[in-house]
């Protein structure tokens, strides 16, 4: 299985790519663990997660070709 990950704002700066493919993750917690290991700077920022364009607040099971978006808050105006 493979998950599409879209990154925004500061998260995209950290991963240096706005889209990633991640294989073999069961759920969003596992995905975040993997990403934070690969990009340790992610641990120091706050972000929210959407699975298939729905914002989630808790761990969610992932399926093949799901799209996970990771968005940081920003406050500029």
């Amino acid at each position, binding site marked *: 299985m493979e998950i599409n990950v879209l990154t925004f704002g500061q998260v995209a700066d950290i991963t240096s790519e706005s889209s990633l493919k991640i294989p073999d993750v069961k759920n969003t917690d596992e995905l975040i663990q993997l990403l934070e290991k690969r990009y340790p700077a992610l641990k120091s920022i706050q972000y929210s997660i959407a699975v298939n364009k729905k914002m989630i607040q808790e761990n969610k099971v992932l399926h093949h070709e799901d799209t996970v978006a990771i968005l940081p808050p920003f*406050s500029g105006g």
Partner: protein
Amino acid sequence: MERSNKYQRYHRQTVLKEFGTVAQDKLFQSKVLVVGAGGLGCPALQYLAAAGVGTIGIIDFDVIELTNLQRQTLYNVEDIGKPKAETAAQKLKLFNPDIQFPVYNLKLEPKNALEIIENFDLVIDGSDNFPTRYLVNDACVLLNKPLVYGAVLRFEGQLGVFNLTDNETDSLTNYRDIFPKPPLPSSVLSCNQAGVLGVLPGIIGTMQAAEAIKIITGIGKPLCNKMVTYSLLNNLFYEFSISAAKEKNTAFPKTKSEFLNFDYEWFCGAAHESNEITIVEFEVLRRKEKITIIDIREKGELPLVDEFLFTQIPLSQFEETVSTISKTNKTVIFCQMGKLSRAAVKLLTEKFPTCQAYSLKGGVEALKKHYHKSAQTSQIKPE
């Protein structure tokens, strides 16, 4: 003014059959508050005034600077040093004299927010910092006012409509359902440091005005329970649906009195993430305001603390006594090492999400070390 003249200026929109004079009348009667007359506020204000919104409130306590002019298109070089809210109102009054522009040359705070926002039908958030964004959000939730949210940084923008149900569901969502907790200040980038392409707030601010006009007139589908991100570099819009977060996840002032006591600067400050404060922060805090201090060590544990007044509630009795703790003051809890107090803070904030409780980092051991050190320094200090 004659009835025929009243609509003349707006002919190009009243001629739209979905809009007509019915929608125009709704705009005439509506009252919109724009928080922040900056990068987002300027275009939003200009288009709301152009569209004929009857009353447009403007809040800003800042003055115009040269570096604002790259995106804040209401102002010119002659305006540098002048207050934004008043200057914006003067220009807009010339542009459309039929509109009322109440000016609030002040910083929005819990003590003034509700009475200002109460006067309006809808709020546009064009502020530039997290404390104001959470404050505006919470005030709009309490007063049940639709909020059009917009934010920008570098080449990316966010747009959303909060506190408004669409026709499909009854659900009401707000900023805290997307971002329950503010980011750590150390990780926050402002447009000051990180930059913003000037045209970007122009786009997002104009979209905020468009959402406001849609909501007021009832045309189209506003972005209820949704947030859109816009990437200027790639021309990508990405839309998310939002659902209401579980209550325990959000530290939300649920009543007006809780709101008045909520310190947004503090909430968005360094302490929130770990709910821990250092001895130095603690010293500053207890000199600044009345706080509740609780020792959760069991009775008789040493060393004794006599540097300040506190209440003793041993952790073993904490859960049953927790409801007696004041929720209006900030609470600092300490133990021997700073570990059990973290558990107590967790327990307290889970039960009372708006309670601003902090664990003293390092506990009594760090405390004693700190006082010992400051006593030494004062001793060796020459008279």
